[in-house]
């Protein structure tokens, strides 16, 4: 068998098959919880780790291909592993390992579907994502892509008795399907009439003209954007993520969105040989809008999972900004800078996978402990579930982009890329890009705001409900999963240099350039994208200094003075009748944002007047795009189907007239 001579690819295939096997194994004893959670899911996690290791190794080796005797007769399954796909495989493996571990502790009997079925759908989801990353022809890619959409759809709707869940699932699958159609068309353009849908051919041939290339790129942007939650195709995201069980939301947000990024990169830099600069500008602009939109809506959410979903939209926007910069630089042959921007984007993908999975899993633990999703009924959980709280703190700081954690690294790299734009030969861009940088900075700052709200309202303060005091901390497997991801966040934050070096292989594959050598120039301790005197950052020193100072100060204070502590009632300016209702709610945190950025939202507010006998406050914040884009399309479809209904009015004479007219017309036409 010819495909057994190159190791990594075979291992990847093996792991894909293993995942499928684990899923099917779940059906053997569908209702046996122990069997699923203690055997299958941990095995899946182990497979994830193995996948990550393999892929990490494969990144430095050169691309390998193989052909499986499956698929269409004249288009068998082509598989290929290169630096790009290996990177995303590693991401999948690392994130899924944590999520699977968590799921082993999270899964309960009698909830939604039977454990076995869930196990099947979950592992098929993993397998299809892995298959996407190694697919090397249009057909396999589409098969894997849609299988991913389907399996995740079933996971999303696993609590299908709830009507909102159903509608969310439907919206999700619909948009996914529309996007898939766009991707299919994109491949159709890329194969440029050769009729061969292997990626190898698409690399070789070029669309006829720049116009067709642009069409291909736009189709890809549309198709993959629909999956990534790019504006204005984001509508499914804040619906589907909250509806799904938390580990699934984690995987969807942390990894599935990245498949779209992968696809976009694959098409833009690999299948298309040349890029046009304004593609980059377009992507950059869209990314900015998406990021700002996401973070603003995240700031006004009152449901913790919706909040995280919107924050995912924001992060995807940031990644797209990086890609846009990379395209622009690339189009102007500034390869080193393109590499820098791309590294920033990829690094952010990795980071987002970690901290977003972590936070979604945290919401899962909170959900199981309290049965509450609404921020308005949470609070003070740091006392009842300290482990989760402290791990969640890491995720929160990371996603808020604070040094020395991982979120900051990618932000830092991205801002560096922006600062180095003045080299661009187009004066307009020179003027505009800094403004974009400003908007990006605003996004970062806002995400800090959002995350303080998220963490503070859930874990800090007084419990807003009595029952919260009884909340229990997460179990062993859950903690393990959370820990895995949290450690990942810290390591990625503190030791970025090796990762960046590894990413060099990806950039040199896609752009023929890498920032690796300039990074190693000043040792593993410092990131120096271009040169030490231009910019450098060393999270480790950063961390060490702060830790040292904290320790020193602590000891000094103890030594010189004392460590005495007394407990008393809260001071609060001496106000004695303090209740938990008096703290700021999530609503309250959203209020300034609503007020400052009013034009972004569609707000229905009822505010009490001083004269109300029964005063109440009510406010619904909605997405304008829903009313501007989605509803009109739906209405149009309805109207059309109303029109065709006229064709069938039940009168046989009319039907006969149809046949008659058809006959006459054709006769007239045929002679």
């Amino acid at each position: 068998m010819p495909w057994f001579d190159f190791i990594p690819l075979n291992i990847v295939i093996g792991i894909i098959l293993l995942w499928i096997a684990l899923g099917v194994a779940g059906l053997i004893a569908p209702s046996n919880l122990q069997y699923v959670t203690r055997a299958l899911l941990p095995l899946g996690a182990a497979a994830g780790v193995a996948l990550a290791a393999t892929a990490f190794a494969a990144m430095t080796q050169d691309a390998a291909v193989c052909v499986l005797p499956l698929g269409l007769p004249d288009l068998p399954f082509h598989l290929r592993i290169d630096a790009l796909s290996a990177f995303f495989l590693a991401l999948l493996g690392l994130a899924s390992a944590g999520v699977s571990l968590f799921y082993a502790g999270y899964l309960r009997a009698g909830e939604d579907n039977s454990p076995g079925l869930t196990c099947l759908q979950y592992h098929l989801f993993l397998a299809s994502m892995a298959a996407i990353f190694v697919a090397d022809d249009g057909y396999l890619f589409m098969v894997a892509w849609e299988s991913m959409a389907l399996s995740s759809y079933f996971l999303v709707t696993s609590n299908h008795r709830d009507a909102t869940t159903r509608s969310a699932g439907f919206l999700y699958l619909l948009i996914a399907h529309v996007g898939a159609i766009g991707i299919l068309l994109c491949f159709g353009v890329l194969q440029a009439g050769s009729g061969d849908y292997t990626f190898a051919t698409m690399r070789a041939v070029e669309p006829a003209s720049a116009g067709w290339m642009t069409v291909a790129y736009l189709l890809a942007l549309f198709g993959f954007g629909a999956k990534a939650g790019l504006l204005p195709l984001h509508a499914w995201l804040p619906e589907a993520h909250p509806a799904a069980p938390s580990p699934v939301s984690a995987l969807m947000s942390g990894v599935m969105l990245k498949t779209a990024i992968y696809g976009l990169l694959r098409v833009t830099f690999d299948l298309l040989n040349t890029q046009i600069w304004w593609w980059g500008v377009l992507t950059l602009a869209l990314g900015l809008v998406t990021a700002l939109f996401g973070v603003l809506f995240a700031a006004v959410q009152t449901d913790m999972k919706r909040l995280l979903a919107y924050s995912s939209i924001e992060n995807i926007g940031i990644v797209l900004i990086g890609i846009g910069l990379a395209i622009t630089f690339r189009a102007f042959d500034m390869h080193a800078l393109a590499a820098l921007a791309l590294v920033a984007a990829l690094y952010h993908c990795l980071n987002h996978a970690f901290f977003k999975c972590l936070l979604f899993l945290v919401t899962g633990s909170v959900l199981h402990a309290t049965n509450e999703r609404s921020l308005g009924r949470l609070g003070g959980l740091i006392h009842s579930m300290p482990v989760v709280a402290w791990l969640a703190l890491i995720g929160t700081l990371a996603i808020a982009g604070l040094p020395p954690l991982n979120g900051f690294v990618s932000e830092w790299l991205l801002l560096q890329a922006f600062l180095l734009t003045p080299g661009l030969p187009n004066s307009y861009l020179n003027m505009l890009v800094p403004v974009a940088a400003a908007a990006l900075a605003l996004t970062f700052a806002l995400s800090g705001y959002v995350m303080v709200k998220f963490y503070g309202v859930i874990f800090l303060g007084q419990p807003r409900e009595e029952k919260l005091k009884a909340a229990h901390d997460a179990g062993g497997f859950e903690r393990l999963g959370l820990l895995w991801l949290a450690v990942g966040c810290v390591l990625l934050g503190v030791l970025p240099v090796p990762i960046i070096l590894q990413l060099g292989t990806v950039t040199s594959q896609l752009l023929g350039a890498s920032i690796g050598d300039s990074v190693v120039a000043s040792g593993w301790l410092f990131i120096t994208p271009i040169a030490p005197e231009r910019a450098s950052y060393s999270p480790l020193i950063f961390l060490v200094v702060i830790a040292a100072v904290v320790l020193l100060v602590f000891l000094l204070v103890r030594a010189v003075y004392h460590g005495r502590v007394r407990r008393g009632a809260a001071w609060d300016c001496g106000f004695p009748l303090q209740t938990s209702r008096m703290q700021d709610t999530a609503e309250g945190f959203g209020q300034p944002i609503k007020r400052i950025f009013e034009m972004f939202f569609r707000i229905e507010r009822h505010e009490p007047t001083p004269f109300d006998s029964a005063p109440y406050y009510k406010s619904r914040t909605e997405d304008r795009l829903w009313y501007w884009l989605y509803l009109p399309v739906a209405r149009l479809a309805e109207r059309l189907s109303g029109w065709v209904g006229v064709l069938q009015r039940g009168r046989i004479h009319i039907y006969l007239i149809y046949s008659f007219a058809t006959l006459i017309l054709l006769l007239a036409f045929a002679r």
Partner: protein
Amino acid sequence: MNLPLSAQLINLMAALLLLIAFAMLSQRRILSLIYLFAWQGAVLSANTLIVAWSTGQPHLYYSALITLALKVIVLPWLLHRLIVRLDIERDVETMINIPITMLIGIALVIFAFNLALPIAQWAQTITRSTLGIAIASVLLSFLMMITRRKAVPQVIGFLAMENGLFFAATSTTYGMPMVVELGIALDVLVGTFIFGIFFFQIRETFDSLDISNLEKLKED
């Protein structure tokens, strides 16, 4: 025009056929429709006979015989018994006004002739010009089916269409092979029986044979 006698006869028959078709199109009363249908059958079998005689093809005699038996005797008799049993002999049905129907019919005839013209020039049978008439009569019976509101006349229109086809078969090509002829004849017979069954079922369900009862299934 110096055609052989047979050809002239055939053309005459064709003309008669067309005439009857028009008559049916304008006929309101069911009973007379049935008679007209029988006449059409007679013309048809006569025509077949003439072709058989002039071209000396034995199997056409059989088919003439079948036609006679089926379309002049059996079917009209069946239909007649049917409407007697359902006692609707006297039924008169209202249709969209006849002159317009006629005009449409004439337009159809012109269309059909033009359609057949090139073919007729190309063909070598003595009876080539009849193709146009065949098409015309098919289209006319189609038109008739469209204009009828009641079940029985619609069925008669259907059978008349069958006649037109048969005419085309015999006069343009000297008849289809025997197997096919028999098959077609069988289908027509069975079809008529089934129609009969339907009449009774419809009748007992809706206690009338008005098709306007059959307009419930639709997109609303």
